[in-house]
């Protein structure tokens, strides 16, 4: 096509015209929570009693300044003991209930809502296996209605934030106006730690943090004063040929603990494939990348973020919230992307009509994206 044949199209206006009159679920409130204790990287490695210079260097080189963690009290020698499988599972349950309860109350308090108003609770975790799942425990501890709809999403790892939002969106949409869906991402990453002096274990121990997020969604038929974004749609890819790059496995030598296995190729495989996902999402709605004002990305790790930046042509400013979440909290798996979203909300910069893209990535190998409209 030559310039003479080219007709300027305002793709964002065309999109707005197309969706005009449609009703989409809206994120009407959100909140985050972390354990009370925050540790610097040096504090963590000293608590583990790590002597290996290579592992100490890995922690010191990290771009993460600190993380909130549930770690045991240190012994007389200043180090923590190697937690047993039972202790790790108990910690996951305890942390999930504490953070899940706190973050739910905080989320509802923004709107002066009661827990009895929640119609559907969706709980996401990949850092521990519970039966019954977290949702049942939270019904008990929060005194939610006993006829509440419940969904537990387990095993989607870091990518789970965006697809779980899709589930919440579909539920809110299917339930019609007024149905309130609470999406909780609760990750007690410290219950998936193994305290061995291997690079593999050290990478996990140096990267992941504990945290929880709550998003409350509702479809509002009438124009609303609520400032939260509407959830427009999603696009995802699963690259099963790279399934082994990110997975839980039994740790090789002791106690049959599960441990996260990460391939060093992972950031680059994500980088090579992220354009397909993003442009799939944008094409679905006839949008261009320049129509997107806000970028909210899962804080997977520094190399993942660099790979996304350089493959999508994003700047540090574009992913500023994600960079800060990564630096200040570490990777909190499924909830990380919503920590970044909350920072964007608190910045109070998003205007009515702005478009934003959510991106998360994780085991599968999965790359997930979602489109938000303020």
């Amino acid at each position: 096509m030559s310039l003479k044949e080219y007709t300027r199209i305002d793709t964002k206006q065309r999109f707005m015209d197309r969706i005009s009159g449609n009703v989409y679920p809206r994120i009407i409130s959100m909140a985050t929570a972390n354990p009370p204790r925050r540790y610097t990287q040096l504090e963590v490695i000293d608590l583990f009693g790590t002597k290996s210079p290579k592992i100490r260097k890995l922690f010191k080189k990290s771009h993460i300044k600190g993380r909130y963690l549930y770690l045991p009290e240190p012994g007389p020698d200043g180090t923590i003991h190697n937690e047993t499988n039972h202790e790790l599972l108990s910690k996951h349950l305890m942390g999930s209930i504490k953070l899940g309860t706190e973050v739910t109350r905080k989320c509802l308090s923004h709107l002066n809502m009661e827990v009895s108003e929640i119609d559907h609770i969706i709980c996401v975790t990949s850092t521990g296996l519970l039966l019954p799942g977290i949702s049942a425990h939270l019904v008990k501890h929060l005194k939610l209605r006993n006829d509440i709809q419940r969904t537990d999403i387990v095993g989607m790892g870091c990518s789970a934030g965006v697809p779980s939002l899709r589930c919440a969106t579909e539920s809110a949409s299917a339930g019609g106006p007024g149905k309130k869906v609470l999406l909780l991402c609760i990750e007690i990453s410290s219950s998936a730690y193994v305290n061995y002096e291997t690079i593999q274990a050290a990478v996990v121990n140096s990267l992941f943090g504990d945290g929880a997020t709550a998003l409350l969604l509702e479809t509002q038929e009438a124009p609303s004063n609520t400032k939260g974004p509407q959830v427009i749609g999603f696009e995802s890819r699963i690259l099963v040929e790279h399934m082994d790059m990110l997975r839980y496995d039994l740790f090789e030598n002791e106690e049959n603990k599960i441990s996260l296995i990460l391939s060093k190729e992972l950031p680059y495989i994500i980088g090579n494939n992220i354009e397909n996902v993003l442009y799939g999402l944008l094409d679905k709605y006839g949008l261009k990348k320049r129509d997107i004002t806000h970028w909210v990305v899962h804080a997977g790790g520094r190399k993942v973020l660099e790979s996304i930046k350089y493959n999508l042509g994003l700047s540090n400013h574009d992913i500023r919230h994600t960079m800060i979440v990564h630096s200040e909290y570490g990777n909190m798996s499924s909830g990380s992307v919503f920590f970044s979203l909350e920072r964007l909300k608190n910045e109070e910069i998003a205007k009515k009509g702005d478009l934003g893209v959510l991106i998360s990535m994780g085991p599968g190998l999965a790359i997930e994206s979602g489109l938000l409209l303020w």
Partner: protein
Amino acid sequence: MDLQLISVNETDSVTTIYLDKLENGLINMKTISELTDVLHYLEDESKCKFLVFRGSKECFGRGLDIAKFYPEKIDYDGFRKWEAMLRTIDKLNKITVAVIEGECFGAAIDLALTCDVRIASDNAAFSHDELGKGILPGQTIFQLGKFCGLGKMLELIQTGKVYSAGEAFDMGIINAAYDASGIEDGLTATLAGYEANDINIHMLTRRLSKESYSIVYDNFIGGYLAAQHRVISLPGSGGADDADDAEII
């Protein structure tokens, strides 16, 4: 596309934007809008490799017509739109060249500095005249010192002194200066020098080079490795992955 203040010539490999219909050589909001539209076309639709900016023989551009940013009062958003347009050039999937003849004042230098390459004829005259108009330069403050150093940048911006193509070349602000009759051959030679470049590699080189002025090596290395992996992964590029293993993700 109906263009009133700029004109465009397209060949298979080179698109030239002429700033030859500006009122008094000044860039107003409509100019910015037309430039932005053409850049979006180039980004989305055009297969050409080069984008060349030219003025007339006597004037490349005399800066922003801030009095016309808005009929009644200055539209401060105009400065944002100008910078956004320059940012689009900076991220454009083309090799960008400014061919400067005659006067090149104020924001016209912003435009030239944003391009990958600047060549000028010996009749070119440069001046950062923004302070005399009571405004601040934008992109020029961000870029000029990287070419000529902080001391010289401050002198040029704070005095608004006029300097020649030869002086601009000596200070590293332009890549080449030609006598007026040699500018076309100079442009041809310039384009030939970049002809072999893969556009993705060219763009990433541009980005990493500019970022090198603002980040420490520990932050540069991650971006470099990501970019390197991207270019090597392109079909036909070949090569081995040399990622370090100190920080896996």
